[in-house]
């Protein structure tokens, strides 16, 4: 469902060279969206950008304050504006996972920089473009990729869980404050996926028991389509239309 709704839609994805982010870039390209994605490794960015149509690769690190505006210049410059931002880049904090009491402050800071401050800064930098898109009736959606660790206090997931809990709460506040501007903010938990990040956290997990990122990407984009204005007016409470497998928190 929802393919037409992505035709020409301007979408930015962070963490776009692996796991869910890579799957999102490919699926968005397949659905006809215009995509700008961000990741740290310039070579990998160039390789991913080459493989799909209408895809712009941007080398940058969302956890670094100095990188945010150069990223925003490229996203908004290359796409001419923005309709959907997907803050997907995530940092586990500690790998292997550790008890919170054994977690270095620096590791917590890094998890917060990537999972909370990065999405905050990038959202602020592109908010004007999103609001313009909403005023023009194109819709404006920010997806913050969440986790069940944002809700459940799993032992050893402290740095990651705390940063994702903060992101989830921030998402709710953004959504409440900016509903009047027509900008929707959703936390989406894609479930446990067979991704490099999950392999770092749980090295001995059976891949067959995990969701495939391409399936999670399709579900996530269907949830985006459900809140775009062509299917339902902005703010009309379409959360229940999201597929059950993708949990909008």
């Amino acid at each position, binding site marked *: 469902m929802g393919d037409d709704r992505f035709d020409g839609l301007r979408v930015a994805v962070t963490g776009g060279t692996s796991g869910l982010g890579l799957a999102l870039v490919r699926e968005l390209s397949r659905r006809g969206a215009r995509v700008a994605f961000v990741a740290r490794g310039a070579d990998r960015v160039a390789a991913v950008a080459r493989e799909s149509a209408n895809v712009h690769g941007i080398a940058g690190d969302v956890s670094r304050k100095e990188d945010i505006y150069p990223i925003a*210049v490229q996203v908004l*410059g290359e796409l001419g504006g923005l309709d959907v931002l997907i803050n997907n880049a995530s940092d586990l904090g500690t790998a292997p996972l550790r008890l919170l009491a054994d977690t270095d402050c620096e590791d917590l800071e890094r998890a917060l920089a990537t999972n909370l401050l990065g999405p905050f800064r990038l959202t602020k930098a592109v908010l*004007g473009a999103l609001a313009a898109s909403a005023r023009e009736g194109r819709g404006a959606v920010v997806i913050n990729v969440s986790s069940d660790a944002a809700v459940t206090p799993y032992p050893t997931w402290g740095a990651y869980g705390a940063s994702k809990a903060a992101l989830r709460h921030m998402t709710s506040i953004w959504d409440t404050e900016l509903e009047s501007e027509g900008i929707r903010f959703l936390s989406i938990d894609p479930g446990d996926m067979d991704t490099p990040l999950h392999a770092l956290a749980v090295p001995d997990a059976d891949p067959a028991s995990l969701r495939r990122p391409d399936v999670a990407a399709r579900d996530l984009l269907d949830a985006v389509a459900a809140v775009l204005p062509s299917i339902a007016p902005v703010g009309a409470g379409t959360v229940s239309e999201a597929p059950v497998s993708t949990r909008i928190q």
Partner: protein
Amino acid sequence: MTPAVAAIQRPTNAKLLVVAPDGTLTSRSRARLADVLRPGDLVVANDAATLPASLSGVHQRTGDAIEVRLAGRPSLSETDVDRFSAVVFGSGDFHTPTERRPLPPAMAIGDMLTLGPLRAAVTGFLSHRRLISLRFDGTADEIWAGLARHGRPIQYSYLATPLALWDVWTVIAGPPVAFEPPSAGFVIDWRNVADLRQRGIGFATITHAAGISSTGDDELDARLPLDEPYRIPVATAAAIERARLQGRRIVAIGTTVVRALEHSAAGNGTVVAGEGLATQHISEQTRLQIVDAILTGVHEPGTSHFRLLQALTDELTLVRALQMMEALGYRSHEFGDSMLIERTPILPGRGWKGPVERIEVPVQERPDAIP
């Protein structure tokens, strides 16, 4: 007037001088913008984000250091980013006022400029030694990446510390197509936008590639503003037409909005959605068709911005306004205080208002009555 030397977009004590249609002057608190405007007004702002348009580098043939300030583009197309007009300075940086910056080395068509990761060829001279046209090598994405990483926002010598992009992007900034910030928009934050809505005041945006405000060269400055591309969204054009039909005011945030809307309406008196290239200069000779009021910074006589304001009110009123702002300690320049000029209606049979008549109008100083 004293320039505002700190790069703070919305100081809590920012002031707003309201120039009423009859020339009455009132000083207000700028944070209460929504209270100064009227329910039914439609506020139109420029949502252009500012490019990091200052590029340091080398003129390859001579090896001389140069600073290239991108100054214009033929269109807003996101793929049409190889061709620019640009002002070129010799060595030095923003700590030297532009009027004292050395000329660049003598350049010829075809000369290459190395600007960090970017390479550009000089493609022409626009009838001034500092003003060139250039063409960047590479794909659109490579050019965007080079500008984003190597470029810096154009700096101002009156500021002590260099500006970062977050200093010059308005909160509503979208497409990065302005060469200097549309600084009248610094007044707006998301609280203002919510306040406007609450008071029944509309808010819409256009995108206008605001050019450079000053080059430090009198001959070049006399040609400003250069041609500027703009885009008017369908929703904005429709909101303007609705407001005009219902007799509501159009309030422009900044001179760029006036230029775009009046250019768009020059054809048949209606603001048309889509992209255009604003080529006209607005002055006391211009009869405005769309804009009823402008919110703008403090502009000095003799500048192109001051001439534009004379399309809304007469020169003597503006001079009185400047005198009052001087007396009240208003600050000038990009991060300074603001004026709201409500257009004097053009009455049938009423000729030019002589200076004597205007000087007799008493300056009413009513400091902000709102606690």
